């Protein structure tokens, strides 16, 4: 079964025309993709790869890479959105679907922009940052 319904696929294709540079979607598989109780028939890693593969086909500027336990990942399955193949520290841990898939697509579009969409004052504050910050955002798909 396709991930995107035909009308959604057309919308996503349209959104992805905003990409101004190539973006690589790195899917990371690991050893501990433990099925959840009650969801035993879902292979989260395989589904993540399928979703990202279908997404990658919707723009010539998107590409998919799949690796087993690449460095820099805390858990699996995971997706790293990489502008021009560079790891800028963006991760999605888990299977992206529903509302979270929409947010991830939003992240892909931002990664494909040459200029940040943040406000100028936010960029100034970030430029003044003198320490590393790790942000984790817990989400649910519904």
């Amino acid at each position, binding site marked *: 079964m396709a991930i995107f319904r035909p009308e959604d696929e057309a919308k996503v294709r349209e959104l992805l025309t905003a990409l101004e540079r190539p973006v690589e979607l790195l899917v990371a598989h690991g050893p501990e993709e433990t099925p*959840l109780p009650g969801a035993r028939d879902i292979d*989260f890693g395989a589904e993540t790869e399928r979703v990202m593969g279908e997404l990658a086909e919707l723009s010539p500027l998107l590409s998919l890479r799949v690796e087993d336990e690449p460095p820099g990942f*805390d*858990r699996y399955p995971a997706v790293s*959105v990489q*502008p021009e193949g560079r790891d*800028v*520290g*963006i*991760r*999605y*841990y*888990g*299977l*992206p679907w529903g509302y*979270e898939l929409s*947010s*991830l697509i*939003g*992240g892909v579009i*931002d*990664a494909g922009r040459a200029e*940040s*969409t*943040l*406000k100028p*004052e*936010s*960029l100034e*504050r*970030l*430029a003044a*940052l003198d*320490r*590393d*910050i*790790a*942000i*984790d*955002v*817990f*989400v*649910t*798909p519904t």
Partner: protein
Amino acid sequence: MLLAYRLALASPRVRAAAIEATEFPSLADEMQVYAVPKIVVDGAPAWEGAVPERIFLDRLLAPAFE
């Protein structure tokens, strides 16, 4: 989540991860995730709920996280 990603894209000092809470329940428990989005900064539970860009940065850059 999108805002966190934008910050990571804009600064080499920021990394941003979205974590699907239902798939990683023990980690979500550990980080006291009772509502989403739940923001965790440098491994410490920080706040819940979507906030505007300026407020997000205010909280992120607050001395409490230094």
